[in-house]
């Protein structure tokens, strides 16, 4: 169970379908709380990623690493081996890349060579589309970059396979159709990619209930599930989410007793 913290200028924010942001608090404070509640990992996404905010993010990472002793991934605006090194040195365990990987896929292998595949998470933001020339249902997914603003034409399933083949150690699959809607994961998207992936797949985008988490693991075949607003809004603790998943038959590290 991975709580996700979208960070804008040093604050945790959350939006619907990548827009309409609200303030959800201090990242280090939230990270500490989720660690205490039994989160297995954390993901920080720097959603502005301008050069000014980069220093802010490195500071957030460094302060988090002083007090949080579970693995955490930092993504957003990572464009080079040097960007990644800065975040890893500040205490991140893994870096997430998205736009830069689509622009220049060789970056994936460069990061894997330098730091090991276990440090390299490729985030794939995917939106449903109709296959070219077809009418009816949208049965394919297209990769979007730049925080969901830019369509790339790239097929998300083929792209995910390519990423794993060249050195990604983990895939973070976000359904843009579902993100922030609280309607549940796009299970077909998650499952299609997870079934083809030799590396762990994290399902993201759309969690509104604890059943959605269970579905992501059992029907979506995800190795881990990611959620944001259900925790930020205080509806559920991470411990409650994990206890629920455990009862539903998902293999989880039990929530901490405290």
């Amino acid at each position: 169970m991975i709580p996700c913290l979208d960070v804008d200028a040093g604050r945790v924010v959350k939006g619907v379908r990548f827009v309409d942001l609200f303030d959800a608090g201090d990242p280090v404070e939230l990270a500490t709380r989720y660690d205490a509640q039994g989160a297995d990992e954390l993901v920080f996404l720097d959603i502005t990623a301008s050069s000014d905010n980069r220093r802010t993010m490195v500071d957030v990472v460094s302060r988090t690493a002083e007090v949080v002793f579970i693995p955490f991934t930092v993504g957003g605006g990572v464009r080079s081996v040097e960007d990644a090194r800065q975040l890893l040195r500040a205490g991140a365990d893994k870096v997430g890349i998205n736009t830069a990987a689509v622009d220049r896929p060789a970056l994936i292998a460069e990061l894997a060579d330098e730091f090991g595949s276990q440090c390299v998470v490729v985030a794939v933001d995917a939106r449903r589309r109709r296959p070219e020339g077809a009418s009816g249902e949208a049965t394919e997914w297209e990769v979007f970059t730049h925080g969901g603003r830019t369509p790339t034409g790239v097929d998300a399933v083929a792209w995910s396979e390519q990423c794993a083949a060249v050195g990604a150690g983990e895939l973070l699959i976000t359904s843009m159709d579902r993100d922030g809607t609280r309607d549940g994961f796009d299970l077909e998207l998650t499952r299609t990619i997870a079934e083809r992936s030799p590396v762990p797949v994290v399902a993201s985008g759309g969690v509104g209930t604890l059943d959605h988490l269970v579905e992501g693991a059992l029907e979506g075949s995800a190795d881990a599930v990611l959620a944001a607003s259900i925790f930020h809004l205080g509806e559920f603790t991470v411990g409650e989410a994990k206890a629920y998943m455990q009862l539903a038959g998902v293999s989880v590290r039990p929530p901490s007793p405290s």
Partner: protein
Amino acid sequence: MIAVLDYGIGNLRSAEKALQHLGAEAELIDDPERAATADGVVLPGVGAFGRCAQALRMSGLDGAARFAIGRGVPFLGICVGFQLLYEGSDEDPSASGLGILPGTVRRLPDGVKHPQMQWNVVEIADGCDSGLLGGVPDPAWVYFVHSYAPERTADTTSTCEYGGAITASAERGALWGTQFHPEKSGAVGLGILANFVRRVDEACA
């Protein structure tokens, strides 16, 4: 002072910060002479065995590690730092480890994902009185990131199940090692590191 050996490999900060969080006086040390006088030594490591073995030798910290272990200074190897205590590794047969613990580091079994990158449960070996794992809850969940692990030997004190029983920790006197990352294993991991800090304090007293 606990020396966290800094030989230019990966993220060594987490181990240092976790020890400091526990109140220990931990420092990243790249000077072999200073490392040789530490009250406790932590050898972390991430990445490839061969590259780590070479970097450790180049830094001159291999001698400091041997010296500390020879004097019975409390010593903790983590992940590849743990693997380096053995004779060698399937990952790079041309590289040799410190050879302090007998045995070879083996590739994880086929049929499971490589690397193992997940939380898993450690099972303490039968009849083993583990100082390292003293007081940990049962089951104890810890975080692993690895494709290789030392073969099981008389020094093995715990295992995890991953396509078979895999060495999770080993102990020989004051020399301890974990294949998992205690500095990334939440409260359980901090408890294990606290056992090490206590051991260092007792050895100093």
